[in-house]
């Protein structure tokens, strides 16, 4: 694992060095290596394919134009994710439409595994994504990176330019806020506690 991370670091660095002395075509290798990852991050923030695509393109172009400010020897992926997250947050501040309220989640109040299971799971996923991205930005970002994309608190700290301690605290609070949000949405404000019932979302408690 550690070895793998080192290899990626070295390969990235090699490509970047070549680009910085004029091999512009070499940047295509960087795009190949990171486009899916950055698309995923962008999608969590935008919740639609077209905006996510536009964001990814902007992020890669921005990174290319600022490549000379990347400090050789540090992790390129951290630098790239930092640009990506900041760009997504900018986009959210300026353009993101207010999402419709998370709709009925009572479909998860049952434990039965029906044929629609996969569909339901995807529905759950998109409901949760919408709930996450509608949290205040400092919480949504750490939750996205930790839960959706499997980053460690240390890596998140480097990407978001903060301390590991702060990331841990935000993860605690963010998860609580997410749980409360899903809870209140599913209860519909009628004191009906769906999350106390068995089901996937109930496990979030």
């Amino acid at each position, binding site marked *: 694992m550690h070895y793998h991370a080192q290899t990626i670091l070295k390969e990235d660095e090699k490509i970047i060095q070549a*680009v*910085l*002395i*004029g*091999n*512009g*075509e070499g*940047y*295509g290798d960087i*795009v*190949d290596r990171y*486009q*899916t990852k950055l*698309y*995923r991050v962008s*999608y*969590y923030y935008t919740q639609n*394919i077209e905006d*996510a*695509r536009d964001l*990814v*393109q902007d992020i*890669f*172009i921005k990174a*290319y*134009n600022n*490549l*000379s400010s990347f400090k050789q020897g540090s992790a390129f992926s951290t630098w790239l994710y930092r640009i990506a997250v900041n760009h997504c947050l900018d986009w959210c501040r300026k353009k993101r439409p207010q999402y419709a309220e998370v709709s009925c989640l009572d479909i998860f109040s049952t434990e039965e595994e029906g044929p629609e299971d996969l569909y339901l*799971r*995807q529905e*759950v*996923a*998109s409901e*949760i*994504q919408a709930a996450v991205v509608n949290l205040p930005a400092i919480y949504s970002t750490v939750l996205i990176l*930790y*839960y*959706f*994309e*499997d980053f*460690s*608190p*240390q890596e998140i700290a480097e990407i978001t330019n903060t301390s*590991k301690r702060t*990331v*841990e*605290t935000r*993860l*605690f609070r963010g*998860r609580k806020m997410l749980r409360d949000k899903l809870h209140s949405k599913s209860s519909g404000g009628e004191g009906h506690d769906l999350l106390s019932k068995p089901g*996937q*979302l109930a*496990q*979030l*408690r």
Partner: protein
Amino acid sequence: MTCYRSQDSWHSYVKQCLSDAERNEMASHLGHCPECRDIVSDIKKTIKIISNPDIPMPQFDIKVNIMDSIDKNRYKQNLVSVNTFRLFELRNWGFSMIAAGVFLIAFNLTSFSSIIKTDQVTELGSSLSKQISIPLDKVSQAAFSFLNHLIPTSRTN
């Protein structure tokens, strides 16, 4: 409720990215603290439910658009500046060689002219010595002024 360690690095603990010492110490705390155990178990459950969610992937090529949009020659200047520097170095070396050559000629001519001057005063006529010595002085002066052109700093001394 509220163990003083409830806000500890449990998220790092779950992702197994702590030092061995830290990790062992936290594991032993979990052994006797049900509250922190619940926290760890909640984090693990949440990971299980919401990690790596399915999202719709684009059917279009992102890479082509990016590669069309960037200026691929943007960093060519870096290469050019490296080459220009080398060329500049080479030119300086060339100038140094020429300067050294001219300096040697100037030095030789000056000493040659003074030898002729002293020897010729007695054996040849003074007019002849002037005829020979003046052009030689001029040549050496020209050589020196050429040197001064090449090495501007030496002119101030």
